[in-house]
Structures are given as structure tokens and as C-alpha cells.
């Protein structure tokens, strides 16, 4: 058991999975000698060599396309997109092939591969380095989308993703990378893909959040609970797709009120699907409109303005209070 930040925790997952299964390979731009631009792949190249920790030429479609081939050929590729903003170049391969190989071949071929990528804002980065576009990937049938929120979950979910029989888009909130440390067990730990985590139990209201947004959410929840003496339930979604709809539904059936917090732009987003799920399964218990606290439908502002646009504790807290007050 050691206290690790998310970068170290992800690194631990990669180290141990490479050790456990010789079919696991890591590939991407600067993941080898340079150990990744965030050092997520630290030590891998030295330990497992250039054949299994592959510094690729600079081409995202090729990284994913060759990963598909590797998966067909029996490997378990973990492909890195250096930033999620470059992953769009690989969407053709993801939508057109990875997501369909199992359906196309009636299960004869499949694409067990992980497309890892740092996503999200708040780190004063250049253009294309700050988006949250999980909804884009979540809508493709055949693709799983996972977003961990803490080091321990990141480790356990990445292990699951690597062992998963399907393509998993694994989005890492880079703002959390070094934000804090958490105890992470040395021994193997696996979390099931497809399960949300109820991180606070409560009765007055449900907050659904994921990734980097979990942390300002928890701060807001703690403040409101302290000030109002109510218990709020917080669901960490973890798997975006296929969503744990029953966890969301059960919670809102109980609390009757819900706030969804996301870093992504508002429209056509994951928060809309959460609302749709509530509509399907808990509408009759709903006592107030579901509030969404989101980014806005604008091209991501450069970092000079970005913190004005990303939900923070303040905005989240206010949305919770207003939803509690709704009568």
C-alpha cells in the first residue's frame, strides 16, 4: 500500500499488467524513452524494452489502426493518444473498425484494446489540450468509455480495461494527475467496467459527476451538507458507456432530486443521457428539474479565460442549493 498520485497509479497498472501478461504492449508518441509527456509510462521502456513499449511515428490513425491489428493478432495493445484533442484523427479507425469487429464477425474476431488519453482543462495548456468530449465516444455502439476520478480507481479500472474483451476509451482527467495522492494497494485490484460508485450516501438529492468534476462536486456537497444538515448522495459514474443506468435510477428514485456536473459543453452531452435515464426510470419520483452544471456550447476558450467556463465548487454548490430549494 502506497500513497500514489494518479500518474503513479496508472503507471502501476501498466507495470503490473505488462508483467502479468506478455501480450500487453504500450504504444504511442513519446511513451518510450521519454516515458510519456506526463511520465505516465515511466520505467516501462527500460523494463520491457522497445518492442513492447513502442515509440511510434507521429500518426494517431496509425496508432489506433495498428492497435486493431495487434489485437486481431493476439496482443492487448494499450494505445496512448498524447492528448484527447488529437484522438479525432483515430475516430475513423475506432468507429469504422474497432467498435464493429465483434459484430462484423459474429464474435470470431474482437478488438481488446485500450485507447488511453489525458483529457480536460484547468492546466493552462495550449489549444486542443483542454477538451472533454466523452460524449463523442460514448455514442458509438461497441465502444466502452471509462473515466476514473481518483488514483485508486484509475489503477483498478485501467487493469479492467486492459483485460476487457472490447475496445475501451480510457479518459484520464489530467487536472487530477498530480492533484493529490491516495492509498493504492500493491496487490492487484480490479473494478468492474459498467458500474458506478456511490461515493456519498444520502437522501436529499443525488449528484452525478465523473472525472475531474468529482472533486469540486465533493467540496460543494460537503459545504452544503454542513450548512444545511442534509445528506446528499454522490454518484461517481466511472463508466460513461455502457452507463450504469440502474445505479442512477435507484438513487434518484430515492432522493427525487438530481444535479449532474460535467466539464463538457452542455448540449448533446453525457448529462443529457443522465437526464434521459432519469426520465425513463425515475420521472415519477422527481420533485424538481434535474440541474446540469456544465461547460458551455463554445469552442474551449484558451486558458486565459478557461476557469470562468469550467464548473467549480461555487457553481455546483449553488445548483445543489437551488435544486434542494425547488418546490
Amino acid at each position, binding site marked *: 500500500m502506497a500513497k500514489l498520485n494518479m500518474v503513479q497509479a496508472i503507471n502501476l497498472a501498466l507495470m503490473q499488467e505488462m508483467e502479468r501478461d506478455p*501480450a500487453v*504492449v504500450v504504444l504511442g508518441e513519446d511513451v518510450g524513452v521519454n516515458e510519456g509527456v506526463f511520465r505516465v509510462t515511466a520505467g516501462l521502456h527500460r523494463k520491457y524494452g522497445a*518492442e*513492447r513499449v513502442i515509440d*511510434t*511515428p507521429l*500518426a494517431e*490513425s*496509425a496508432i489506433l*489502426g*495498428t*492497435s*486493431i*491489428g*495487434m*489485437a*486481431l*493478432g*493476439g*496482443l492487448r*495493445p494499450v494505445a496512448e493518444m498524447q492528448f484527447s484533442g488529437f484522438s479525432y484523427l483515430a475516430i*475513423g*479507425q475506432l468507429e*469504422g*473498425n474497432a467498435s464493429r469487429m*465483434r*459484430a*462484423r*464477425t*459474429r*464474435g*470470431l*474476431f*474482437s478488438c*481488446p484494446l485500450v485507447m488511453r488519453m489525458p483529457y480536460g482543462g484547468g492546466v493552462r495548456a495550449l489549444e486542443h489540450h483542454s477538451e472533454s468530449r466523452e460524449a463523442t465516444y460514448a455514442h458509438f*455502439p*461497441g465502444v*466502452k468509455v471509462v473515466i476514473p476520478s481518483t488514483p485508486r480507481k484509475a489503477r483498478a479500472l485501467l487493469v479492467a480495461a486492459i483485460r*476487457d*474483451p*472490447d475496445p475501451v476509451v480510457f479518459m484520464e482527467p489530467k487536472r487530477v494527475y498530480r492533484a493529490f495522492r491516495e492509498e493504492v494497494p500493491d496487490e492487484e485490484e480490479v473494478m468492474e*467496467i*459498467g458500474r458506478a460508485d456511490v461515493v456519498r450516501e444520502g437522501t436529499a438529492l443525488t449528484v452525478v459527476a465523473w472525472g475531474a468534476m468529482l472533486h469540486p462536486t465533493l467540496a460543494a456537497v460537503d459545504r452544503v451538507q454542513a450548512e444545511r444538515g442534509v445528506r446528499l448522495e454522490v454518484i461517481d459514474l466511472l463508466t460513461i458507456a*455502457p*452507463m*450504469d*443506468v*440502474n445505479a442512477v435510477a435507484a438513487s434518484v428514485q430515492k432522493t427525487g432530486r438530481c444535479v449532474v456536473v460535467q466539464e463538457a459543453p452542455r448540449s448533446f452531452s453525457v448529462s443529457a443521457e443522465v437526464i434521459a435515464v432519469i426520465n425513463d426510470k425515475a420521472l415519477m419520483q422527481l420533485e424538481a428539474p434535474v440541474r446540469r452544471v456544465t461547460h458551455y456550447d463554445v469552442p474551449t476558450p484558451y486558458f486565459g479565460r478557461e476557469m470562468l467556463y469550467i464548473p467549480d465548487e461555487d457553481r455546483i454548490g449553488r445548483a445543489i442549493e437551488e435544486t434542494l430549494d425547488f418546490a
Partner: protein
Amino acid sequence: MPLTTIESFSVSYLQVLDENGVLDRALEPELSDADLLRLHRFMEMARDSDQRMLKLQRQGRIGTFPLCTGQEAPSCGAALAMRESDWLVASYRERGARLMRGEPPTQDYLYYNGFEEGAAMAEPLSMRRTTPTQVILAAQTLHAVGIAYAMRLQGEKDTAVVTFLGDGATSQGDFHEALNFAAVWQVPVVFICQNNQWAISHPREKQTRSETIAQKAIAYGMPGLQLDGNDVLACYRATREALDRARSGGGPTLLEAVTYRLLMHTTADDPRKYRSEADEQAWWRKDPLVRFRKYLKEVKGLLTDADIERIQHEISEENKQHVQAFEARKDFKPDASFDFVFGTRHAVIEEQRALFLQDLARRAGAGEDGARTAAREEAAHG
């Protein structure tokens, strides 16, 4: 050092059997009679399937499909050069190669009648190593590179990968990325471009300004060769040499097989919109089958005209039975699409399946069993 020439390159062309069936003995590959007859049989089979499918399509008995008539040589030649354990990562015009690797024609009939059941086979090994038709142009070339990497890493040193694409597909970014990765990794891949002169209506000269597709290999520091793609002996020989090089660690090769799509792009296409009958006629005179038959008759003395007719008749009869088998097939589970979304079970998917089945049941105005049967029939008749 002022303005200096620092590098020189050249591109070669291979032809073994010319348009008139004249053989270059120095280049003739050593092939057993059995192999030659196999090659012949499958080229005829590919041609016959194409013609049969065209009729089926015109009668509404299968859907749209891409034709391969005139392009039998590159894929049959390559398939003969390959081992069972090699991978074939083709696009959609390589019926010949897939037939040679053990795929019965029924698979294509099913596939082009809208059933995934026609897309993959677990046996024999050669089919387990044949990826299904891939429609996103050039995407499969990257898969080939990844597969080759996987084979090498797992110690299958003798396994190589053959991948096909069209002349139009060479314009795609994925083609470039695949050749570049293959060369940097020095993986055992043979890229075969079937330059059939057309990408639907777009002629080769407007697809790229390079005089040949073969010279594109220079951009990747890779060997490239242009060859007569209607000369199956050249196709075999070039693939074989590229495979030998690949197996011995010499890395990838780009082959440009110059051929021609004698019929429409797919059954939805009308070539009269963009090319002349004269152009087509000129290429019919280079028909790869005519030339190869001539070689078998006149050079090898392996077959007579009567033999060939008999073989064609056999194939035709065989194919008729395949069509019957295809049309008799009705075991299409309607909710199968829910079975192959993921390799794991998820509530969202199962909920939707339940809705789907409920809907079918209601529709059939009967219990779920009735619905399944009804749906199966609806599915079967598309």
C-alpha cells in the same frame, strides 16, 4: 557542398506472360502442375461467382456488391504464394484469394445479402487468418501492419501478412501511415495495390500525379515494384519474392499490380457515365483468364479446351448448389445484433434487447417464440 545529387532511385516493371501469352522463360516461376491447376480453377471460380452474383443481384436475390471480373490475377497469384499461416487482410475485390484460402462462395452470397454470418470463418487456419471485407478504404492496411507486428512479437517469425487496396485508396492518409509504420518497424507485410485504373468514376491519372503507384514506396524507404496485374505468373512471382524477403527480416514491400476493373464498380454503378466502351474493350483483350488458359494449354500442355469447358461446367454446377444452400438458409436470429455489441453483459444492452423482443412479439401478435420465428423469416427475406 552546393546543389548536389544525394540520392537516386528507380522503379521496375515485371511481366512474365505478356498480353499475347508470350512467356519470358527466364522469369517463369517454378510451379507444380497441381498448383497451376489450382490457380486456374480458382480464377475460373472467382469469375463464375462474379457472374452469378450479378444475376442474383439483378433478380433482387442479393444486394449491391463490388465486382472482381478482370482482377482475378493479383489476388489468386498472391494467395498461391501465401502459406496457410499467413494473414490475408483484404479489402473487397479479392474474392479469388478468399476462395483459395478456403472460403466457400456462400459466404459472399450471405454477406452481400446483408448477413454478418457471411463475414468470418473460424476454420481452416487460413480463414481464421483472413480478415473480413473491409469497406473503409485503406483502413485495413494499418491492421495488416499491426497483425504483422503481433506475429513477430509472439515469435511467429515465419508468418507474413498480405494486404490489398485499390489505386484510389492510396490517396487516403491511412495508406501513408501504414506504409510508414511498416517501414519503420520493418514488419513482414506485402502491400498489393490493385491499380485497376478507376476509383468508381475517378481515373488513375487524376488520383495522383505520380507516374506509378510503385514509386510511392520511395517515400518510405521501401522496395516497390510495378507488375502486370493481368499476368498471374507475375503476380505470383512478385508476391512470392516479397514474402520471402519479409520472412527473412527484409521488411515490407509495395507491389503495384496494373489491372482493370472490366465491369461496374458495384452493381449500383454505371461505367457509361465516365468511360468508353472502347477503353473497356481494349482491356478485355488483356483478360487474365484468357492469357492463363493459353499458357496452360500451349506452354504447359496441361489442359485442352475441352478440359477447360469441363472445369467451367463443374464450377458452374458447384456454384449453383452454393446458391441453393445460401437460399435455403433461414437460421438468422433476429436479436443477434445484441449478442455481439460487447463480450460482456450490460444492463443497457439487455434492456434494449428485451424491448426489441417485446416489440417483435407484439408485432407477430403472438408469444415471444412466434415473434422470433416471424422475425427470422422477415430477416431471411430481407
